[in-house]
Structure formats: C-alpha cells, structure tokens
C-alpha cells in the first residue's frame, strides 16, 4: 500500500548467485567468463537518434552495458552564469536503480560526471557557441562493466548527432590488470578482481589523448603495453562509430 512505500521498509536482496571465487589467476591463466580473448573487445551496437526530443542522442550497447546519452543545446546558459565568450559544457551521468545487480546506486558514480566532462571538453570546439551551454546527459540502463568508457564513446556519438563542432570523435576503452594478464574491455566480474585499471579517452584520427585514468598497481612496461592496447582499440572503435554516423546521415537527408 502507499503507506508502506512512504515509510521505506528495509529490504535486502537475496544473493543466491554470488560465489566466492578464489584469486587463483596469479598462477593459472584466467579464462574470461564470456569466452573472449584477452585483447578482444565486446561487440558494439551503436545507434544515433534514439531520443527525438533532444538535439542529438545516441544509444550504445557493449555486451551487457547499455547507455543512452542525450545532448541538448547549444541553449541558453542559466541566468546566474556570467558572460563567457566560449561555450560551456555541462555533463551529468546517472544510473537507473536497476542498472546494478544489487538495487541502489554505487557510490563512485558521482565522479563520472566530472570525468565525462574532462574527457569531452578537449574535443569540443567551444568557441563556436559562445554564451550558450551544451548539456550532455547520460543514463546508464544496465551496468555490465567498463561503464565510463562506453558513456564517453556514446556521448561523443550523441554530440556528433547534435551537430556540435568537435575536433574529432572521442573514443574510450579501458584495460584491467589481473595478475600478470591485461584484459581489455572488462566486464563487472573482471573489474571486481582487478589489480589495476587504465582508461584512455582519445581522438583516434588526431592520435591525441584527452583523458588518461590509471588506478591500482602498475609497473612501467605494463603501462606502456596497456596504453598501446587501448590506443589500438580506440582507433578501431572510432571506425565503427564513423560508420554508424555515416549510416544515419543519408536517412536524415531525405
């Protein structure tokens, strides 16, 4: 009844599927749960124009990670903002309550909004829309691992769909370090066991990196190897995003 919802009863999620896995992959080779090779990314499904009330939008599905991004703008900045002769970028990343296997939001997702901002602001030509703001809103429908890279790639696709001028598409890929192995595009299970992670957001055609995030334990040669892996995957993802945009373009010309 409505009264019960107002008092918010305490509930817990039964977890019959959680098994305690031992960290044995230091000695034995880790086999990825979905059968991919260590350097194989998940197949990507990308689609622009998902939301028609937005200036531009995109939907991305990388395995079980599903993200929708809408771009609104350039539109009027809030009245409280001072005059600015370059445009402003406003980013927000939010999760649905059912995105994680356990209901309720994760606590580290609040910084995703500012991380998305940092990844995108290097690519957008802010001088083309002075005094106005471009809003980028991302909603993660299902979190299957490697969420922020998917959000970044989807956001740059949505920005391209909205016609915001950019130097290049921003593609992003992350790599997890599991013992002695480097696995690319980790799923949530792999992320929970990782010793370290590296995420790169780059402009593939210009060969420039807009954001690099490194966490955990890394040795220098491993970092070099991981960066090479990421940049290679980013350029391939860039090709896929371009072909997605090209397919969408002739349909809108009619």
């Amino acid at each position, binding site marked *: 009844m409505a009264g019960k*919802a107002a008092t918010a*009863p305490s509930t*817990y*999620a039964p977890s019959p599927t959680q098994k305690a896995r031992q960290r044995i992959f230091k000695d034995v080779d880790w086999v990825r749960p979905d059968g991919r090779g260590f350097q194989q990314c998940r197949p990507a499904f990308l689609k622009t124009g998902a939301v028609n009330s*937005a200036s531009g939008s995109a939907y991305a599905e990388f395995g079980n990670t599903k993200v929708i991004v809408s771009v609104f703008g350039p539109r009027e900045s809030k009245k409280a903002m001072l005059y600015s002769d370059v445009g402003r970028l406003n980013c927000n990343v939010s999760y*649905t309550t*059912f*995105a994680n296997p356990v209901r309720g939001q994760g606590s580290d997702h609040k910084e995703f909004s500012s991380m998305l901002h940092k990844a995108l602001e290097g690519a957008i030509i802010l001088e083309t829309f002075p005094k106005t703001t471009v809003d980028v*809103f991302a*909603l993660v429908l299902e979190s299957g691992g490697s969420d922020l890279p998917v959000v970044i790639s989807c956001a740059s696709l949505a920005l391209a769909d909205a016609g915001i001028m950019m130097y290049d598409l921003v593609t992003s890929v992350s790599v997890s370090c599991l013992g002695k192995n480097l696995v690319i595009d980790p799923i949530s299970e792999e992320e929970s066991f990782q010793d370290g992670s590296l995420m790169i957001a780059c402009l593939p055609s210009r060969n420039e990196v807009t954001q690099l995030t490194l966490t955990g334990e890394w040795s220098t040669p491993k970092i070099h190897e991981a960066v090479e892996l990421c940049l290679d995957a980013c350029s391939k993802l860039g090709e896929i995003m371009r072909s997605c945009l090209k397919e969408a373009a002739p349909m809108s010309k009619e």
Partner: protein
Amino acid sequence: MGSSSASGDLEGEMEVDAFRRLFPLRFHERHLLESIRPDARPLGRARESTVALGAVASADGSALAKIGHTTMLAAIKMEIMTPSSESPDEGSVAIDFHMPPICSPFVRPGRPAEVAPVIAKQLSDAISSSGMINLKELSLTTGKAAWMAYLDCIALTRHRVKELQKILNEAISDMEVD
C-alpha cells in the same frame, strides 16, 4: 502570414513550423477540419507500437515499449522484506516513475519533473485497483518474509504517458518468481 504555404517546398516547410508554434490552435483546427492529425493519421488510428521483453538483463523482469516516438522502459527488481502485521501473507509492489534528464529539455538533473510523482501515483492506483497482481503470490513465509517488487519506470522520451499501463503488464509477465 503562414496561411498560404503554397510557395516552394522548403519555404513551405519552414512556414508550417513557424505557423505551428505561433498559432497552435489554428494549426490544429485546420487539420481537424479535414479529420486528420498533424502526422497525417486519421482520427481513429493509433501510432505504431512495439513492445520488447527482457531489455535489461540485470533486472529480474523488464520491458521496453514504444508508441510512435514515445519510449518507456520498466524494470522490476525483487527484494525480500518482512511483511506488515496487517497483511502478513502479502508481499508488496513499490512503483516509481522517473523522468531522467535525457528525456526532455525541460528536466534538469537534480530537479525532478513535476509530473513524475503524479504519474507514479496514477500508476500505483491503476495497478492496485485493477487487481492484476495477486499480492498473496509474493509471500514466502507468512509473517516472516515476502517479496518486495520494486517496479521502476523510466521515460526515455518526453511525450505523454498513457503507454505505461501496457508496458507494466509486459514487465510483470516477464518476471520470474521462484
């Protein structure tokens, strides 16, 4: 002003759009005189609708419905709760409706849309009064444990919301309870 849109296709297009925004009443009246709607549908025809089940794998049951351009996603997550003392053999369903900032240019993050709680209440009334869910089925052990189904509906595009009833049926039927 925009009343004669006979000159040139592109020019005609732009005038129609301006006419629609400046004089919405006359715009719609002119269509209704011909018994037709702005998107060329006759009055009695509904838009194309599609429903897809199991859209979100992390939820216990989910459904995505599209009617025309309006897209709504509903998902159910089951958790265990202690039933109340008034109804110890019933579980419960908590219905929530969100309009995230992606769906409309008027919704800002941190400031939920005003219509959202209204629609949530409409939905929960519709579900409880229609009796489509037998709450007794959600009970596990009388008085000790019962299922609480969190039904969250997300609007993915802005337009109106009658479509939700349809997807709710689908989301609930997609759900599997042991």
